């Protein structure tokens, strides 16, 4: 029953094969990543910035020799300060502006590890995450602030590499594209570049 539920999730994610074998080796990883993030697409209309304030927590479990399922939680922060004139239709507004985006991805992930697994060798992976993004958007001008908070459906395709280490855990390098679909007129997208540590059993 448990493997059937995992197989159903894999099908939805459209990344890895259908079913896990009964002989799949039990192995899991958990860890965190520190990320750099770059706004992209529709986000750049609000904030166009590279951010160093990002963190991710994730866990993965091997369901096959070359595939894993997992979860990912993150917190990405973007901010910008502008002293400019903004036009909204026939209205022009000038003043010191502070803009913030706080994004909280909550994803179910699936990853595929091509090639033959060898101990103490780096392992490339490709995968994706599907889930929800809770995103807070805030603009402050003078003594006025406007906040728009939305839940978005989102996806996050990812590529990366696991670098085994015999000391604390396995190193993780990854590049992920986060896309939060439009919700209430707000659409967000950004890249993350993660360096992390995974420990497992």
């Amino acid at each position: 029953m448990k493997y059937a539920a995992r197989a159903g999730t894999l099908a939805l994610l459209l990344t890895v094969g259908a079913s896990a074998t009964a002989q799949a080796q039990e192995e899991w990883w958990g860890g965190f990543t520190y990320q750099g993030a770059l706004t992209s697409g529709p986000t750049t209309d609000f904030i166009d910035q590279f951010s160093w304030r990002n963190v991710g927590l994730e866990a993965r479990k091997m369901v096959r020799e070359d595939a894993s399922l997992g979860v990912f939680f993150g917190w990405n922060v973007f901010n910008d300060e502008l002293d400019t004139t903004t036009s909204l239709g026939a209205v022009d507004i000038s003043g010191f502006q502070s803009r913030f985006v706080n994004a909280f991805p909550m994803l179910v992930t699936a990853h595929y590890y091509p090639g033959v697994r060898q101990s103490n060798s780096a392992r490339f992976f490709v995968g994706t995450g599907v889930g929800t993004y809770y995103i807070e958007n805030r603009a402050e001008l003078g003594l006025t602030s406007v906040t728009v908070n939305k839940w978005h459906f989102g996806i996050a395709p990812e590529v990366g590499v696991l670098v085994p280490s015999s000391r604390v855990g396995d190193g993780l390098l990854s590049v992920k594209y986060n896309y939060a679909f439009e919700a209430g007129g707000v659409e967000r997208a950004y890249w993350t570049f993660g360096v992390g540590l995974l420990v497992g059993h």
Partner: protein
Amino acid sequence: MRANGPARIRRSVQRMAMPIVVLMAAGCYPGNGPTNVEDLDVVLTTRAPDVDFNSYSIYALPDTVVHIRPNIDEVNDIIELPRTYDELILDLVAENMEKVGYARELDPESNGTELVLLVGAVGTKRTSWYMGGGWWDWWGYYPGYPGWGWYYPPYFEEVTIEQGSLVLFLLDPGDQGGNDAQVIWAGAARGLVDTRVRSGTRITNAINQMFEQSPYLGSYSTIQ
């Protein structure tokens, strides 16, 4: 079998690393925000659609800034602003109108005028209350129990914000009876009232900014 020392240490480091990173990210939350009173000044302008500003060239400017004063018989948040800068305001407005190409009519009652520029000011005061105190370590709110930390009686803090607004209305009076009067352009500036700061400079910058971000008014040139 009990885990050996190095393995135990490694697991401890692994367990601590994740929350430490999360806390670091939270501690690095951005937001220097405004650091000076001037950073809170806002200038806004708007115009009526489909107005050909090139069809106007003459305007009249009253010699008084209209101050909206509080009604002493009512409880409201309007405060009276000082008239210290009224003359500066009128001079700046006239200077900017001249730079965008408008001629001032000094006797509109006799000669008529195409436009009237009205200047007004209003101040507001807002008071908010916040409660502080309670348990120092917020572990509980049960007075008299030993070991729950230090208890401070609640106290209230008052925060008062006074803001001043300067508004300009450029009005097409229509026919002589005042019918069909239309506001074709409006400007507003808002900021904290603080007599200790360079209020004159802030007012000058605000009025200049109104005209700088409204180039459609006429042939604007940078105010020096």
